[in-house]
């Protein structure tokens, strides 16, 4: 009896591992394919059966892409936007979240409700008037437009506030008795405590800004202002037959996100759990 259930358990485990392994493969193969193709000549990209490690890796693909399109420029623009937006969002969100979770003031619940209500409204529902407003302010075709659009998010405030709710009020009280100002409590107690939440918000914001597509497409018309996603897409339609080059450019466009993600991911599940976006 015991032996039978143990045997069943083992075969179940084997099945689980096979299933997981297959899923991991399905998740990874496209990237391996991307990487492998980025080192090939066009004519070899589609050779079948597939040659995973090219016999003569064509490293020139990775040097050619920088001259074919202003890739350096695009990456610089995107990095600039992503970093500024992320910093602004972390600062303003955690600042506002502190008031919403630890301070008492007039209209607190009303204002917070307003924040929550707008999270559910799709951006696409007001992107047109937003565009008109930006144009009216003369911000069309500027990076400032993208920064202003992305830097003040209701979601960020909500997420940080959920996390701060879990920090005991007594901690703030004790600091107040010790003579720390509210700004001091935010800077010296709340910020250091909220690493998981800040990391999670950083991943979300950085990745969303880096990968944003519709925003830059609407606002940035000048080539020298464009971002990597727009540039990559132009490159794909312009050189649609040069697969090796397209894959090389794709690899380059993903690398910064990989770095940010891997650096912060150990906080990530913890951050999602603690900040209560699980609902």
């Amino acid at each position, binding site marked *: 009896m015991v032996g039978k259930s143990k045997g069943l358990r083992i075969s179940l485990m084997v099945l*689980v*591992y096979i299933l*997981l392994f297959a*899923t991991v493969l399905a*998740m990874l193969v*496209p*990237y391996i*394919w*991307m990487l492998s193709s980025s080192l090939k000549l066009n004519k070899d990209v589609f050779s079948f059966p597939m040659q995973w490690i090219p016999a003569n890796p064509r490293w020139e693909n990775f040097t050619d892409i920088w001259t074919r399109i202003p890739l350096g420029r695009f990456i610089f623009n995107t990095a600039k936007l992503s970093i500024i937006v992320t910093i602004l969002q972390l600062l*303003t969100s955690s600042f*506002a979240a502190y*008031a919403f979770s630890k*301070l008492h*003031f*007039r209209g*607190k619940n009303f*204002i917070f409700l307003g924040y929550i209500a*707008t999270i*559910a409204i*799709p951006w*696409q*529902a*007001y*992107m*047109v*008037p*937003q*565009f*008109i*407003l930006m*144009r009216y302010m003369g911000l069309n075709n500027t990076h400032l437009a993208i920064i*202003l659009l992305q*830097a*003040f*998010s*209701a979601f*960020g*405030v909500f997420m940080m506030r959920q996390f701060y709710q879990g920090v005991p009020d007594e901690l703030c009280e004790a600091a107040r008795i010790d003579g720390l100002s*509210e700004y001091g409590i*935010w800077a010296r107690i709340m910020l250091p405590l909220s690493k998981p939440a800040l990391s999670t918000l950083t*991943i979300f914001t950085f*990745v969303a800004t880096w*990968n944003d*597509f519709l925003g830059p497409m*609407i606002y940035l018309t000048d080539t020298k202002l464009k971002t990597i*996603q727009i540039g990559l*897409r132009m490159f794909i*339609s312009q050189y649609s037959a040069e*697969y090796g080059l397209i894959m090389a450019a*794709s*690899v380059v*466009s993903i690398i910064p*996100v990989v770095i940010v*993600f891997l650096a912060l991911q150990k906080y*990530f*599940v913890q951050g*999602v*759990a603690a900040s209560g976006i*699980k*609902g």
Partner: protein
Amino acid sequence: MSRGVKDNLIAYSFIAPNFIGFALFTLVPMIFAFILAFVKWDGANPMKFIGLDNFTRLIKDSTFHKALWNTVVYTIGVVPLTMIVALALAILLNQKIMGRNFMRTVFFFPYVASLVAVAAVWNFIFSPTMGPINNILHTITGIPLEDLPRWAADKQWAMFTVVLFTVWKNMGYYMVIYLAGLQGINPELYEAAELDGAGPWRRFRNVTVPQLAPTTFFVLMILVINSFKVYDIFINLFAGADNQLNDSTRVMVYQIYNTAFRSLDYGYASAMAIVLFLLVLGITIVQFRGEKKYGQ
């Protein structure tokens, strides 16, 4: 200055940096969107108030109906599939399993990887005559390449292809949310159920499912809202050229974007946006009701 006023001022100073930006660039445009829906405006000539004309025009607009329908079909395809896969993976990765952290990272990664880049890869993978998928199918089944589905290039298969791709790309995100939910379940509940002689399936049904209900509602809500807002997946999965978007894959946001920024018909585009907003709002309300009723 009294203590109370000072406290209020300090609190407002914390909110102000975010609130001013949020009010100016989110709230004001939202209110403006409602007004725009009732005017005719091309952005250059004076606005003209036309009452409900934009909405009556929508009722007769068959292209918009088709876009709405496609959005619904896409949502029905994506939502259940993503939920099942994400929950199954979360349960597996919540066990003590070798390489658990590595797998969590791998599953989540497509969510953060650039859509333009991964869509380009999938375009090649799905490519009808040269792509690996059809070549493998051809080798296994012997069916001639031209008789196999043409995936993203095929009216019949395009929506299916987009749904598959979407599930692949986003399931990791929902998996992480489910993982967080699973980790919030008190282990004593499982121990008690086991003492009562409940097997794995009963434990899943009587502990995991009810305990996860709030998470499931949250996931459902975000999934549906995101599916209604979809746009970029569609234009990127079709060989990078949005003029290839045909009737079977035109979605609502594409229609809004096109009407506003190509036809410069801001009022009409805003009316469409209001419809999108009302739909999302309606779904959110229904789901909140459901959560109140069943979520305890």
